[in-house]
Structure formats: C-alpha cells, structure tokens
C-alpha cells in the first residue's frame, strides 16, 4: 500500500512551501501531488517552481503528479490548465471535467476527488480516456468502496482520502475575503494568514467548518488510520494524506507504521493524538455524517446490533 501527500490546499508562503517539500523528500511517502488546486489568485509558487520541486522529489524517488484547479471559471485558468497538461514529464490529477478533456489520450491522469466518480460505469469512462488511478469522493462509505472495488475496471488504482481536513465545497465566492468585507477581486490574499484554514464555529462554540478561500473544508480532521487493515483488505492501493502546517512528518510515519504492521491500528490512533489540527472524524467511512468520530470498538458493537 502506497502513501500519497495530497496537493497542498492552503496558501503558504513560498519559503514555507519550499521547506515543506524539502522535508518531504525524506518522508516515507511514495506519491506527491503538487500544484494549486483551490484558487488561481495564489501565485506565490508558480508552475515553474512546482516543476522544480517535482524534479527534486522525483530524484528522491517519489512519483509526482501535478494537480489541477477544482473550479475553473476564467479563460486564464484554462490556459494554466493547458500548460500543466502539456508539461511533458509528469502525470496530471484532473479535478474538473475540463482537465479530463485536455488530458484524455495525451497524458496519463488521476481522476481526482472532485470528479464525482460514484460508480464503475463512470470509472470505465475515465479509464478509457486514460486514467490510471481514481480518488474516491470523500463522502462515500466503506460499503460503497467495497462495491466499487468489486467492479472497478482493470488497470485503475484506487486512492482514498485518509487524513486531513476534507474539502467539502467550492464557490465563486471567497469566504475568507468575505469575512474581512473585501471583494474577491481585491482579496489581499488574506487566506495566506491561515495556514490550516479559518474555523467557523456554531453559535455554541462547536468547530464546524473551515474556510479556505473559495473552498469550504471540514473543521474536523478526517483520520482513517484505525481502519488501515480494512483499506488493505479492500485492495486500496494508495492512501492520501492532505498536508497540514504542523506534524506532517509524524503523521506520515504513523500511517507508514500501521501499514507496515509495526503499530496496531489502536496504537496508530494513539500516536495521532494531539497531532491533528481539528478534532478527528471518520463518519463518512461508516456511512454516517462526515463529522462523526466512531471508536473502533463502538463500530463493531453498532454493526453487531444492526446485524451488519
């Protein structure tokens, strides 16, 4: 089972980005997704820079994939998309159907988590167009994954989002700019002030969502380290860990240890204590509300009671 670093979803300074990927060279990850997937106004790190980082990671033995924007609105964004697809060296993660069209038959691509692949007929089309891997949408459950794995087309790897605040929605509107009463056209890149997003609480203080520019994330951090054995059993080839600003080295190591069997799932959960930015959640995996956190024991009990 491979570990992947998902695309960096936040707007960090150029120095922080370079430092992060310099460290990642030595982490036990197999695949690294690079590039801006959220907002085209974030130009601190340009395509040339991403390609340079990609070369360094490749030299360190990593498989590199260039991620594309999830929400495409402007013509300039299509131009960037074409440049990424035409990079000539690296595979591409298509996060929008426009990217699929541009990549089809030209470059191997990963069908990203925002493409809405909910069934095998959809995966069959992506495979025919040149996809080599697909990333399951975050809202799908273990049961659906099992059903898809039973009918997925040959030659297509499965990747599951296993760690990080989950991308839940995209908008034409920038919620970070809106929080500061700034128009989007003059957003002053305020999302750069929040290295893991800006938390939105309920009126009774419950952390609920996290605003990351035009993207809305979960405030809770998805953590599937406890179910790594189940993911293996379902023939999932890749686990995606979405970067957060701190402790990423320890998080990667904990997942690697559970995959290799040097830590039990319970020990993995314990090792992650205090490392996640938000409260942990794993509800989607069990077909529940995404924000829920079910303890391993609790789950088997619930399944026994429901006859599942």
């Amino acid at each position, binding site marked *: 089972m491979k570990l992947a670093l998902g695309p960096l979803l936040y707007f960090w300074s150029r120095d922080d980005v370079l430092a992060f990927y310099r460290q990642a060279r030595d982490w036990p990850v197999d695949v690294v997704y690079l590039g801006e997937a959220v907002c085209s106004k974030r130009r601190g790190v340009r395509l040339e820079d991403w390609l340079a980082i990609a070369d360094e990671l490749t030299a360190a033995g990593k498989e590199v994939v260039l991620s594309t924007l999830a*929400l495409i609105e402007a013509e300039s964004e299509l131009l960037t998309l074409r440049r990424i697809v035409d990079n000539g060296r690296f595979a591409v993660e298509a996060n929008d*159907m*426009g990217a699929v069209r541009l990549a089809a038959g030209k470059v191997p691509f990963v069908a990203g988590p925002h493409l809405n692949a909910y069934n095998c*007929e*959809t995966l069959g*089309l992506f495979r025919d167009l040149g996809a080599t891997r697909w990333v399951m949408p975050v809202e799908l459950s273990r049961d659906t994954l099992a059903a898809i794995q039973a009918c997925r087309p040959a030659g297509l790897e499965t990747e599951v989002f296993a760690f990080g605040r989950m991308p839940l929605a995209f908008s*034409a*509107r920038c919620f970070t700019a809106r*929080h500061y009463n700034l128009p989007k056209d003059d957003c002053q890149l305020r999302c750069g002030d929040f290295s893991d997003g800006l938390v939105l609480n309920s*009126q009774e203080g419950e952390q609920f969502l996290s605003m990351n520019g035009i993207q809305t994330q979960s405030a809770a951090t998805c953590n599937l380290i406890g179910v790594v054995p189940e993911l293996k059993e379902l023939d999932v080839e890749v686990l995606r860990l979405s970067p957060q600003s701190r402790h990423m080295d320890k998080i990667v190591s904990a997942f690697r240890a559970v995959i290799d069997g040097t830590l039990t799932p319970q020990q993995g959960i314990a090792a992650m204590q205090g490392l996640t930015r938000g409260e942990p959640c794993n509800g989607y995996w069990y077909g529940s509300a995404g924000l829920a956190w079910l303890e391993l024991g609790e789950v088997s009990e619930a399944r026994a009671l429901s006859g599942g």
Partner: protein
Amino acid sequence: MSRKVELVCPAGSLPALRAAVDNGADAVYMGFRDGTNARNFPGLNFDERAAREGIRYARERGRKVLLALNTYPQPQGWNIWTGAVDKAAELGVDALILADIGLMRYAHKTHPQLRLHLSVQGSATSHEAINLYREQFNIQRVVLPRVLSMAQVKRVMDNTDAEIEVFAFGSLCVMVEGRCYLSSYATGESPNTCGACSPAKAVEWRETSKGREVRLGGVLIDLYKPGEAAGYPVLCKGRYEVNGAVNYAIEEPTSLSVLDILPELVRMGISAIKVEGRQRSPAYVAQVTKVLREALDAAERSPDTYSPRSDWVAALDKVAEGSTHTLGALDRAWQ
C-alpha cells in the same frame, strides 16, 4: 433577433405542473418519486401514473416535459437509476437531465435517440468540460452552475455549440452545484447521494430562553430571536461565529433573480432560463411562471426599452427566500 428563449419551470407535483403550463412555461421539469433526482422530498414528485398524466397535460398544450435524473448512483443502487432512464425513455419525455457520467454513458448507449441535458449538478463550468460531455454523450444542452459572471457565461457560449440554460429565479446555491458535501458532512445525506440538501428528518427546532434554535444533524446552524422570520434551515445560510463575529458567514437567505438582465441574456443567445423550486407550492410556481413569462416576452419584444416592472419585482420578492434577491455570481461584485 435571436431564437426564442425557453422558459423552464419546476413541477414537483401534478398541480404544480398544471400551474406552470397554465401560466406560460415552455417546458416543465420533474422527477420520479425516489432518490434518482435532486429534490427527493417526502410527498413530492411523480409516480408512473402521474408522470403519464403530466406529460399528456403538457403535450396537449404544446409544452415540453424534461425529466431530472440528477443524483449520483452508487453500485448498490445502479439498477434503480438505469431503470429510471429506461422508464423515462418509455414514457417519451422530451429530454433527460443527467449529472452522473456513468448514467450518461448508459443512456447514450441504450437510448441513442433520447435527448440529453447536462444537469447543473454535473458541474460543468467551462467550455472544455461541456465539450467533453458533448463529444462523449452528444449532450444537447447544459445547465450552468451558478458560479459564472456574465462575461464568463458569454465566453462559454462562444466556445461551444451546446445550448446553454441558466437559472433565472429561485433559491440560490452559493456552492458550485454537484460538488457540495456540506449536507452529508452534518447529516450523512447529500444532494449527490440522496437527492436532498439539509434533509427535513435531520432538522430539529427548539424553543429556548435564548430564542428559537435550529439544528441540522445536531449542529446548531441558527438561533432566531423572538419575532424573527425563520426560513427552511439550509446549512450554508445559517449564522455562525468566525473570529468572534456572528453572522451569515457563508451566505444570507436570498434568492437569485435575473429580472434586471433579461435583455442581455436574450441578446447573448441563451437557449433557456430555469426557475428553481420543485419543492415549492403550486401557488409559487404559478406566480413565478406568470411573472417570468411576462418579463421574458417583454425582453424579447423590446430589449432596448425593457425595464423590470415594479409589480414583477414585488411579486417575486414575496415568494423569495429571505424576501430579497440578488444576481448572484452573474454580478461580479457579489463574488
């Protein structure tokens, strides 16, 4: 003069369908009574008998019937969705409105004569995306997500020969449609998986000393002071606390209305404008259809002198979410 713009109105029930047809809709759209469409609400939608009756009623008056199958089937339920495609073909609807690529592939293969529209839930925001659907499945029309400015809509139209449909009036999704999991994050059910956003069974109202609480899946999404008007609790239109400030951090309760820019839409060559609201009453459908029929006729007749009549605006605001309206993303400033 461009060809006539089609007015597409919601039919959540037979009475709503008749209201739409009687008040001037060129086409109505409806769904079956299950999770195959994005308005899967109790008591709503059409069984086979009602669908036949609705199609007959519309056809006799020269109107079209579109059928929305715009949720995303998972393997466990695949046969229900393909069964719905087959049923729609047999009923002879004028077009299917689809979101899922797999289902499009099935429909295109199995019923090549059936006209296909790409649902707003298909989330195609660029001409590159649209042209993929067109090449693969011969999609005839695309309903654009409510994230593009007028200039961006124009750019899309310049680069595809697919017909373009835009939303004209109704509740406004602030997130790009088809790629929003906020509802399932709080409740386990989303528009994509279950055809419901903020489903009623997950809603709890409670009177407290602080006011009227509304929770969704247990999360407090708003708190209304005594006397304050409360609408249907949609997660993205709740009041939250961010950095100490409590307000509508995502979006105010408001409706989209394109009354102000109808002549521009007509001139651009938009093929159809759509009214949201299959979950709303026949009275709502009648009112909104009537106003938009008059407004669209006026905009097509004399686009240069058109201006929205105040009684139209008042009639629409009366049935609008939050009793107010916006141009949404079509107006760059809103973004």
